[in-house]
């Protein structure tokens, strides 16, 4: 059986990962769409705010709630879904706020939502996007009955940010230092951390020189107000990690065949494997197909004035095809035994369901891209 068909059949969560600009969002949408066509209802959760995907799916815009792809969109592309397909876009700030509203004790909610450290954390700061994507995935998985959820992950510069997100929270909560700092204050029910009880100690004075005393004080307040939520966070972080490691969760690594993308993909693949994640397939997107010999023969018969331009174009395409075939061969070797799925470069951008369907034919094995001898 085709690896993608198998992964879709066996999984309830598929996570697309890869570096930016390789077509990850499109591949995620394709997986969800074809799944719905094949009678497994799906939801694609993306972080990509591009309107184009929404438009391709026949939606005015994607929001923080699930929207069903209208049947007309499918019909316009000559397709009939056998199960519904939904799509939504992750709104970071709102998801964070909802999390706090759900979990924080009533008396602390306002204090947290108004705390400047919280606002910075939930709004703009590094790493929180990765964490909140995991949080949303867990929530959808647990409270909604989608047979398949496809998560399109943020384009990370650092692969670990994403895998690490739940761990980082766990680390925070399980840290002895945190307990030591927070518990006496909690017991006393007021702000008065040990750190500051140390008063004029050497350590405290030195970090104050670095951050300022007031910053430390405010940060301590923030930590104290979220500390009531420790248990909840701890439990959730464990559950998210378990969800990532579950038998029914698989990763689809998306990459492009250019040399610089290959290095990143291999690095990503190694990290996923080290973390004992199941990688269903490496999808190599936008591969240049080889140039047929017949084209060269036809070009040779053209009058001189035309011939050169055609031969130049063939030469360029052949160059790209050779480079891509070499990239594919390297990936195959370095990611073995994870199977590779090749998707050819399409002339123009994906802008409707019809082009999404075309891509799905390569993912599902209805069509195959044959490479030249270099790749074998």
């Amino acid at each position, binding site marked *: 059986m085709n690896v993608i068909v198998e992964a879709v059949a066996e999984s309830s969560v598929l996570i697309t990962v890869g*570096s*930016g*600009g*390789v077509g990850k969002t499109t591949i995620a949408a394709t997986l969800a769409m074809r799944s719905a066509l094949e009678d497994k209802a799906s939801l694609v959760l993306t972080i990509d705010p*591009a309107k*184009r995907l929404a438009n391709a799916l026949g939606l005015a815009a994607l929001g923080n709630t699930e929207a069903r792809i209208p049947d007309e969109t499918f019909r316009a592309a000559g397709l009939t879904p056998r199960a519904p397909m939904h799509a939504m876009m992750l709104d970071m700030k709102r998801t964070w706020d909802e999390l706090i509203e759900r979990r924080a004790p009533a008396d602390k909610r306002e204090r947290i939502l108004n705390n*400047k*450290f919280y*606002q*910075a*954390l939930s709004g*703009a*700061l*590094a790493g929180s*996007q990765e964490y909140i994507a995991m949080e949303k995935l867990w929530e959808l998985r647990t409270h909604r009955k989608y047979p398949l959820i496809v998560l399109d992950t*943020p*384009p990370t*510069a*650092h692969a670990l940010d994403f895998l690490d997100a739940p761990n980082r929270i766990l680390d*925070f909560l399980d*840290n002895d*230092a945190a307990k030591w700092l927070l518990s006496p204050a909690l017991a006393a029910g007021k702000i008065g951390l040990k*750190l500051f009880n140390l008063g004029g100690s*050497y*350590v405290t004075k*030195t*970090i104050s*020189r*670095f*951050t*300022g*005393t*007031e*910053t*430390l004080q*405010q*940060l301590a307040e923030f*930590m104290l107000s979220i500390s009531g939520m420790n248990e909840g966070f701890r439990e959730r972080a464990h559950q998210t990690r378990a969800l990532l490691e579950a038998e029914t969760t698989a990763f689809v690594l998306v990459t*492009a065949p250019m040399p*610089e*993308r290959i*290095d*990143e993909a291999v690095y990503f693949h190694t990290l996923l494997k080290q973390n004992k994640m199941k990688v269903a397939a490496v999808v190599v997107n936008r591969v240049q197909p080889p140039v*047929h010999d*017949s*084209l060269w023969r*036809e070009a040779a018969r*053209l009058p001189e004035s035309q011939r050169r*331009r*055609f031969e130049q*174009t063939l*030469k*360029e395409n052949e*160059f*790209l095809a050779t*480079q891509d075939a070499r990239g594919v061969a390297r990936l195959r070797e370095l990611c073995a035994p994870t199977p590779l799925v090749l998707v050819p470069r399409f*002339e*123009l*951008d994906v*802008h409707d369901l019809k082009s999404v369907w075309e891509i799905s034919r390569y993912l599902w094995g209805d069509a195959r891209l044959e490479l030249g001898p270099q790749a074998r």
Partner: protein
Amino acid sequence: MIQELVDQRLVIVTGKGGVGKTTIATALALQSARDGKRTLICEVNTKERVTHLLGKPEVGAELTSLDENLWAVNVRPQEALREYALMILKFESIYSAVFENRLVRYFLRFIPSLQELVMLGKILYHLKEKKSDGSWRFDRIVVDAPATGHAITFLSVPQVLLDTVPPGPLANEAKWMRDMLTDPKTTGVVLVSLPEELPVNETIELHEALTKRVQMTVSVVVINGFITPRFDEPTPGLPPGLATLAHEHTARAALSETSRQKLATLGLPVRLVQKLFLPEFGRAAIESIATSLEGRK
């Protein structure tokens, strides 16, 4: 150097992931060094690529000379924090005693974006650094910045901190950094894009975020991988395979032109870098790009 960046001492190169930021940043740095400017190129906590492109051994977090007038460094948070702390604390022994303290490490992790702040701090510190004769240690610094979302986060760190932390040493640090980044006489941003719909849209959004939210000045837009039309008039009687070939090339060239027009609406100079078909994307490609960026020759 590109005309629009002649006076800028800090050049920040950013754009969507996969558009060729590193290539363009390296070409700009090479060009700057050739103009006789002492130039430092910084990668930001990433898998090192600049040195590979120039055919040199990796430099890591150690600021290293690559060529005449050209230095490189891959800025990493751990080393940057150490350097930064040492600058303030002056003594290595205090650093070890304090910053290697478990409790302190724990606390520092929760200061919002401290990592980004110290990395940015290191880069900007080198911009202020002077030699003993009073001249700049580096005439120009080129930063191969992270991609869109991370770039906005990275470059807004000083402002976010100013909004978050009360007055004190941390806020003072944030303030001079913010002022340097937003000073158009010092700093120019280069936005790199590809001649395709998505990257173009993202470039326009990034331009909006950088100018309105982060208050920075974008100097120039570079379209990488531009394709010039080759089959201008339709040729009757072609075999179908060749007709498709011509048609595809024309479609790609048309997309390049549409992209150029759309980016031109930003009202900024747009430089085109032709798509290259070179076997090793190394030194030769960088040299050719550096030359074409200079343009109008």
